[in-house]
């Protein structure tokens, strides 16, 4: 005696040819199988299957859609040309121009106080050297500071 659920399960598998040979043998030997089989077959036969078919142009439309989608991925030349030209110009500008900031002299105010003294001493020494040089080459002696 087979459980009704199991019997139906095996009959469903039998319909699709998925029941193993061993189970098929067991099913064939089951006394309730025939009545259940004919009930199941009658129910399945009563199901109204749709005879509807796709439109006769279905394949053509599918092909057309695929072609359109492929085309939209590959943009036409008249769209690509200006984009490529712009990209080329940008590349040229970037590679030609030097965008790094120019080196400006460090403002005096920014120099540290300790360094300012060293700078002043050096400046005075240079100034004195310059003064003596000017005096050496000049006939008229005058105070360089007055300049």
């Amino acid at each position, binding site marked *: 005696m087979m459980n009704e659920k199991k019997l139906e*399960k095996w009959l*469903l598998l039998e319909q699709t040819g*998925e029941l193993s040979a061993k189970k098929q043998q067991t099913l064939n030997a089951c006394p309730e199988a025939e009545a259940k089989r004919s009930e*199941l*077959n*009658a129910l399945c036969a009563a*199901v109204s299957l749709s005879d509807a078919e*796709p439109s006769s142009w279905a394949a053509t439309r599918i092909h057309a859609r*695929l072609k359109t989608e492929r085309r939209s991925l590959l943009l036409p030349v008249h769209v690509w040309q200006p984009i490529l030209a712009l990209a080329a110009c940008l590349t040229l500008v970037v590679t030609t121009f030097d965008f790094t900031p120019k080196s400006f002299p460090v403002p005096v105010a920014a120099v540290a106080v300790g360094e300012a003294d060293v700078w002043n001493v050096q400046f005075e020494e240079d100034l004195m050297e310059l003064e003596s040089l000017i005096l050496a080459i000049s006939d008229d002696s005058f105070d360089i500071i007055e300049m």
Partner: protein
Amino acid sequence: MKAEEKTHSMEEDDAKLLAAYRNGDSEALGLLVEKYKKPLFGFIYKFSEGREDADEVFQEIWVRAIKNMNRYRQKSLLSWLFRIAHNLMIDRIRRRKPMVSFDTSASEDGVAIGEMLPSSRLGPDDESGGHALGVRIDAAAAELPPDQREVFWLRMQGGLSFKEIAKVQKCSINTALARMQYALSKLRNELGDEYRELQEAG
């Protein structure tokens, strides 16, 4: 020729036709569409809002299939097409009602997901053609939860095996079988007297 060998050569034929289409032979697509139009369209028709809607879904399935041809790993092209149909239906349900799972039997507001799916429509020919029981089964099937309804039509209209149905629904064969059994049990209850008459006639 054994059934298994026949299936194998069919798979080879499909792979060849797909490759031919990829290489520019547009007629190869026509042959494939022609080959699988009946089971696939019949199944879609049961879940769509009329012929035009079914036509649109049918085309969308093929477009997705061809576009993702490189992902085609399944042995059977038909199962793969049904898998795409399954995904497409989930997308459609989500678009109508966001945040609802296909496996959920009812939404928060108490509306069954099955109700959100369009009920299967029978043309006037079907209704006047004396298929009264068929019409009742169709209407009863429309009330099934989506997963059971899908298994029922995949088996009945699509002619898929339970192994293939399990692949489409990404579940075990036992789950697919259990869903079919639940569907049949509910149909028997819905049909009531008509089912008993059917039993007697059977």
